[in-house]
């Protein structure tokens, strides 16, 4: 079977030199893990400082008034009252209320925005934005020119302030433009691991320079997409294609707080209909009784053995020392279950339903 060629980030050769195991992800050839392995990388993130190459992700620039440009009508989060210098997480929905993508909106100026989207959805998102932005807007896809490097972990501030003076002032979910090794770039206090962290948007062709400066700090470890997925599951962040999809609304995914029903946006009508009691599925978080982990593709059963849903994300959690999983259960299964069974034809294991997030000791807001 022929495969279309995979895209590479500007740090591809750097990853190979570090001994990374490269895998396809969303059309990109990305580091899954480095030679130390996922458990050590997990430790680096939760106890020290880790650095991820996220240059595969997409960035759009939109110029225009929040409403007149059409941007406010595309995203679920409230952006009209969003202060300049802040970030807001939300989604773009299809007319049925399903999720086209989850994204972060940065307000760069009163009439200038950056939208950060998932790598695998860049093409689809760009088409959707172009179709629904008005003539009173200017849309630019800057993904191919923009590298993104995430510095994450309890020591991230100490590491970053040596390279980016002033960055220590940034509050959670805000950003600034800072001179970083001779380039004026956006640095935000955001991330995907539940730890204190920063994302640096850097010119594509100069990405190696900033990566090298970060990695030169001996407290920093390179970390791959393998541990990134483990970390985000531990703090119950959604991953597009798992907890969110064209077929799953943010309400079903338990992300209602990122949907502002006091404004108009594409998909709102369907969402209002399907939210709350009428929702087709309910997201459920559960922990295994031992180190054995639920996996995507496993089914969820009630204690009497009836199939009631599916696992969408699962992993061994190094922080908890047990398997953890996220799934959707059918609405017919209405009583909030305390216990479920997960598994497949061969394997059936008991699990306890828990409140999100699984891991509560992150330094996110430190």
């Amino acid at each position, binding site marked *: 079977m022929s495969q279309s060629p995979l895209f590479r980030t500007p740090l591809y050769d750097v990853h190979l030199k570090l001994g990374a195991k490269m895998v396809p992800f969303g059309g990109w050839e990305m580091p899954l893990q480095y030679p130390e392995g996922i458990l050590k990388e997990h430790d680096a993130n939760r106890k020290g400082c880790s650095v991820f190459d996220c240059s595969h992700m997409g960035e759009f620039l939109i110029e225009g008034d929040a409403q007149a440009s059409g941007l406010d009508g595309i995203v679920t989060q409230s952006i009209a009252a969003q202060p300049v210098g802040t970030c807001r997480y939300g989604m773009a929905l299809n007319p049925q209320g399903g999720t086209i993508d989850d994204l972060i909106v940065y307000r760069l100026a009163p009439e200038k925005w950056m939208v950060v989207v998932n790598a695998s959805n860049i093409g689809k998102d760009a088409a959707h934005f172009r179709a629904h932005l008005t003539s009173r807007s200017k849309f630019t896809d800057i993904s191919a020119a923009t590298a993104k490097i995430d510095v994450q972990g309890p020591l991230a501030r100490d590491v970053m302030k040596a390279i980016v003076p002033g960055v220590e002032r940034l509050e959670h979910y805000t950003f600034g433009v800072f001179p970083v090794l001779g380039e004026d770039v956006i640095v935000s206090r955001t991330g995907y691991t539940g730890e204190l962290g920063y994302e640096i948007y850097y010119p594509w062709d100069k990405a190696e320079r900033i990566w090298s400066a970060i990695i030169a700090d001996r407290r920093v470890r390179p970390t791959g997409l393998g*541990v990134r997925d483990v970390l985000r599951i531990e703090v119950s962040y959604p991953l597009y294609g798992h907890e969110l999809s064209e077929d799953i609304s943010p309400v079903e995914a338990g992300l209602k707080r990122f949907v502002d029903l006091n404004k108009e946006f594409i998909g709102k009508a369907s969402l209002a209909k399907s939210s709350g009691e009428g929702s087709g599925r309910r997201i459920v978080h559960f922990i295994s009784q031992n180190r054995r982990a639920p*996996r995507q593709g496993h089914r969820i059963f009630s204690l009497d053995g009836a199939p009631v849903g599916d696992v969408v994300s699962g992993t*061994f959690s190094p922080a908890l020392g047990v398997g953890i999983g996220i799934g959707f259960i059918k609405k017919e299964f209405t009583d909030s279950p305390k216990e479920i069974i997960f598994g497949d034809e061969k394997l059936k294991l008991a699990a306890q339903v828990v409140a999100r997030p699984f891991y509560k000791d992150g330094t996110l807001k430190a």
Partner: protein
Amino acid sequence: MEIVQHYLYTKEHEWISIEDGVGIVGITEYAQSALGDITFVELPKVDAEVEQFEQFTALESVKSASDIFSPMSGRITEVNEELSEDPGLINRSCYDKGWIAKIEVSDMDEASNLMTGAEYESYLESLGRGGDPDSDE
């Protein structure tokens, strides 16, 4: 890739070392490296009868689960209890301290269905030429 020349190997990357009719079974360097950090080992039951090339246990790493197949038929006489508490032993010492089970081999002729160290080495090279079997998801 480290290989112990006097062990025998399966295509699924298990090894067996046979002495006085008892085989010690584990997974190879190639397998542990492909799996990454192992986080769970399902220990087979002592006294269970296993068939050659049939699944007899399972391993999990952080991001995946893998079936383990018995290199030969026989009765399980002992399992490596240390793996319950320390599954990473397989990563650190796959050919020695990270052994999984001991099998009282019932049919020594089955050894002819396995690869010698040299044959396994060539097999790994052929996999390398044909692409890494673990990277096609």
